[in-house]
């Protein structure tokens, strides 16, 4: 099967997610064992689409599919090589790679960082990714604190709940468009299964599980302040920064903007194994808020 990769993807998150939904539907509804992902005619892909497709491919491969990536003479082949699309900037496989992450300081994007979920390497990896984002964007003050808060909490969430073997983080700054996009992704058990296994809450379906997650209901049965990572990050993005928060897990998508929060059911065979988080952070809203109004 040759996967129909679009020539371009737009900047709008909803449209980009729909493209990923289409690809997921095509593969899930197919019996083909071999998938060819051909970028030969592709001019531009938005980072949300890239991180989503990267993790979908990892899931397809884990499910036994053979996935071949063809770049041909595509204008994006150099960029794809730099972000290491084929296998990711895989710190799980080679922890020494962390030391070369600062080479991205002068770029506007990180590579597709595949980070471990256990041990001190995760600590060092997340800190180094944040340092690279700071150097790339020159963000300061409360906005910098907010980015650090969200990335640290959402990567910690993957470690705490996903039961995945790794997490993925990918960030790109679009200076002319005025925002940073950050994807934080895993291909673990997903939000609904995480709640089902916890026995603390008993959501009836994915939509209720995602509502619990964005409301800060922790699956951890501990008398401490758990469950704040997603709920507070969402509040900072939407209420403080005027950005967009999107979470896709299984066949359900949660998306919140200043206009409205919504939970959508994605049927017809499309699903995301694990959890895909996409954060759009407008650069022009820096430092006009008190971070602790949203997290305390």
């Amino acid at each position, binding site marked *: 099967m040759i996967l129909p990769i679009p020539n371009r993807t737009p900047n709008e998150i*909803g449209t980009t997610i*729909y493209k990923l939904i289409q690809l997921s539907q095509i593969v899930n509804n197919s019996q083909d064992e071999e998938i060819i992902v051909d970028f030969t005619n592709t001019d531009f892909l938005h980072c949300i689409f890239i991180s989503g497709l990267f993790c979908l491919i990892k899931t397809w491969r884990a499910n036994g599919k053979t996935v071949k990536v063809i770049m041909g003479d595509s204008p994006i082949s150099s960029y794809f090589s730099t972000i290491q699309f084929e296998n990711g900037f895989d710190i799980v496989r080679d922890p020494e790679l962390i030391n070369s992450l600062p080479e991205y300081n002068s770029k506007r994007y990180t590579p597709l960082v595949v980070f471990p979920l256990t041990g*001190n390497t*995760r600590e060092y990896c997340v*800190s180094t990714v944040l340092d690279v984002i700071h150097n790339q964007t020159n963000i300061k003050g409360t906005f910098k604190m907010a980015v650090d808060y969200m990335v640290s909490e959402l990567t910690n969430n993957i470690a705490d709940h996903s039961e995945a073997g790794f997490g993925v983080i990918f960030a790109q700054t679009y200076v002319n468009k005025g925002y940073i996009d950050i994807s934080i992704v895993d291909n673990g058990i997903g939000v609904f299964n995480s709640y089902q296994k916890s026995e603390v809450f008993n959501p009836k379906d994915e939509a209720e599980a995602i509502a619990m997650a964005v409301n800060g209901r922790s699956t951890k049965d501990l008398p401490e*302040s758990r469950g704040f990572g997603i*709920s507070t990050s969402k509040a900072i993005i939407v209420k403080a920064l005027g950005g967009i928060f999107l979470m896709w897990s299984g066949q359900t998508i949660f998306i919140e903007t200043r206009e409205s929060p919504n*939970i959508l059911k994605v049927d017809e065979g499309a699903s995301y194994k694990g959890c895909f988080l996409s954060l759009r952070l407008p650069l022009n809203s820096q430092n006009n808020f008190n*971070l*602790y109004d949203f997290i305390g």
Partner: protein
Amino acid sequence: MIKLSTFNYLCAPKVMDCTHKISVTDILSKNSLVTREVASFLISKLKNLPYYTIEVDFSNIDFISRSFADQFHKEKVDLWDSRTKNIIVINAHVDVYSMFKAVSKTQNSSNRDYHSYTLIQFQTRRSLKDYLQSI
């Protein structure tokens, strides 16, 4: 009446009765602290010091995550409650203090608001596409 802090101090066994000061960066060569594991690691190092009262100097720490702060706070309180150690955070940046304050205020998760959301289902692929394109 004896103060609790004095009682804890008097009851702390087999430790030196002077205050010991240690910098976080003596234990962790970093200026941002992210994971719960690192918080537990830091506390474990402090537990092994032969002092009851330990002032932990955060002066070179630029950022602590909420998870780090929560784990550090919880284990610090446990040590205090068990009369094992009195750990005092000193010289922290205002944002580091604010994070510790935030987690200390939110230890009881049962008081949080809950917002309901309406699940939107689509009859056709086209209607899902149109909806997403509007965002």
